[in-house]
């Protein structure tokens, strides 16, 4: 009995303390309020709607009045093999993106460091950053004007060199590569800045000492620069892994979304969700796939965050 009393008292004290702390933090809470309202309105409010994935959606009855059909919507997508194909494509693309993004960005950053002329470096960095600033709609326009076989720039060049023009828009084969290249084109400028900064952060004395010791350029990169980039690389890689089932809808849709000849090998989950919500108008199926995607992503992030917490506690997100 006495023990319980003490416990109760502790709880009360704890509560009081929490109340007091909340009161003390009231200004900070108020400062957070606009953002909290924002997230409630646009991120949390739609969540109950996920239920649509489990019903046979009827417009008039709304999401919660429609007939519950359990996992049937999931079965409909899974049975035709689409789910597996979409998951596979999305993950493969992301794996390739993650690996190449980092590889190219690290290379670029290292080489950028080798550039001695400050003006040259600045101008080239500005140029490399440009693609990051444009909308995916424009990316679609640019790619089309370079690759199409009638008026495209690439074919103009090939033709002027006497080669056989390519017909990229009727052949799905090269598109996974094209999309990857476009992605790299767009993102490398940005990604390399992160690594460039990390290299700049390396203690210059260590590098100089190594040079005095007679290390050559390659050795310098191999034994000093790369190891010092390791934590950055690892962290960025891990977090990228968390988003491995999320695709860049804007890029895919504007490059190949409207052309069924092209999209089959590059069809990702987002494209399917968009097509079936919108073109085939299947709210429930689309949401089922969306939910499946969120769940996998969620598990991935929790796992990755758990690993990060063990390896580099400072870097964990929560």
């Amino acid at each position: 009995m006495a023990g319980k009393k003490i416990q109760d008292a502790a709880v009360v004290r704890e509560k009081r303390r929490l109340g007091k702390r909340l009161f003390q933090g009231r200004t900070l809470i108020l400062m957070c309020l606009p953002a909290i309202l924002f997230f409630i309105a646009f991120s949390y409010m739609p969540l109950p709607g996920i239920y649509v994935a489990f019903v046979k959606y009827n417009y008039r009855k709304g999401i919660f009045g429609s007939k519950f059909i359990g996992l049937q919507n999931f079965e409909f997508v899974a049975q035709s093999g689409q789910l597996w194909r979409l998951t596979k494509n999305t993950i493969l693309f992301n794996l390739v993106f993650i690996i190449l993004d980092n590889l190219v960005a690290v290379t670029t950053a290292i080489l950028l460091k080798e550039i001695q002329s400050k003006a040259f470096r600045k101008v080239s960095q500005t140029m490399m950053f440009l693609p990051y600033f444009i909308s995916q709609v424009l990316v679609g326009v640019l790619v089309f004007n370079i690759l199409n076989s009638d008026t495209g720039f690439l074919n103009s060049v090939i033709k002027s060199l006497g080669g056989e023009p390519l017909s990229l828009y009727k052949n799905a084969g090269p598109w996974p590569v094209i999309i990857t290249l476009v992605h790299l084109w767009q993102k490398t400028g940005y990604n390399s800045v992160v690594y460039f900064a990390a290299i700049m952060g390396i203690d210059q004395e260590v590098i100089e000492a190594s040079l005095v010791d007679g290390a050559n350029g390659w050795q310098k990169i191999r034994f000093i620069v790369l190891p010092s980039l390791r934590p950055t690389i690892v962290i960025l890689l891990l977090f990228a892994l968390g988003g491995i089932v999320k695709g860049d809808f804007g890029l895919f849709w504007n490059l190949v979304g409207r052309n069924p000849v092209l999209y089959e090998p590059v069809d990702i989950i987002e494209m399917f969700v968009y097509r079936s919500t919108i073109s085939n108008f299947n709210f429930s199926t689309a949401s089922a796939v969306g939910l499946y995607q969120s769940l996998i992503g969620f598990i991935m992030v929790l796992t990755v965050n758990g690993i990060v917490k063990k390896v580099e506690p400072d870097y964990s997100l929560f």
Partner: protein
Amino acid sequence: MAKKNKNDSMDSAPKVKLGTADYIIRGIGYVFISIFAILCILPFLIILASSFETEANIVAKGVTIWPREFTTRAYEMVFKGGTIWKSYGLTIIITVLGTVIGLFITSMMGYALQRKDFVLKNVLSFFVYFTSLFQAGLAPYYLLMTQTYHLDNSYLAILLPLLTSSWVIILMKNFVKSIPYEITESGKIDGAGDFMIFLKLILPMLTPALATVGLFLALGYWNEWYQDSLFLQQKEVVMLQYRLYKIVNEASSLKDSVAGQFVDYSDLPSESLKMATAMMTTGPIIFLYPFVQRYFIGGITVGAVKG
């Protein structure tokens, strides 16, 4: 900033004699960076040049990096319709308004979440982060926006959902982390309230962060086309990128964009018109970039690496 200068001065004053391998790597560096940089802007040059090229030349000979016959006809077309100015006005208003409001919301929360003594720090951090993990998807979102909020055919459907995001708040939080906690403490000792500390002491130190996050927000607004396509069906004036999207994807809206001009459609420069529109819709953000680049690059560095 100081640190960066130190590094720069190091670069320009190598004290050690370089070997062959160093020169090879350096050579590779120049070549690779040059080629890559040129590849990055080449498509823009092509679009720019082709927007000044005659339609006949584009159709017959393809796009080019230098106009074979110079004409400004496509641009005249783009402007004559007049509606592009309205799209400009709309895009600028929404971008400025959204960025300013968004920055305020983001920086306030970013600051609060970084305060060690904030009681809800962990709860709210997860509250924010969770939104990037779990999304309801298109259908519930669409129904909520239209049925519950009635934001269809309202420009608020563009402005509000892009005000902030878990990503920029985390970015902002990381920036704030780089500001010593002592500054907040000193404010406290002076008796300043939390909001005043934020406004007077912290905000001025966050300039690179504000520039970076602001640029991200502004980019988000400027490049927006998706929400337009969902919610602005009944609006005559749409954001610039959606305008481009419609012009690229559909012949009839190309004609609409210059409708009422007594144009003989047969010589409507459709290809070059698309490119002129592309240039017009993208130009401002490109011109803006070099001015904010310094902050931006500094900003990403702090936000991402020290994260």
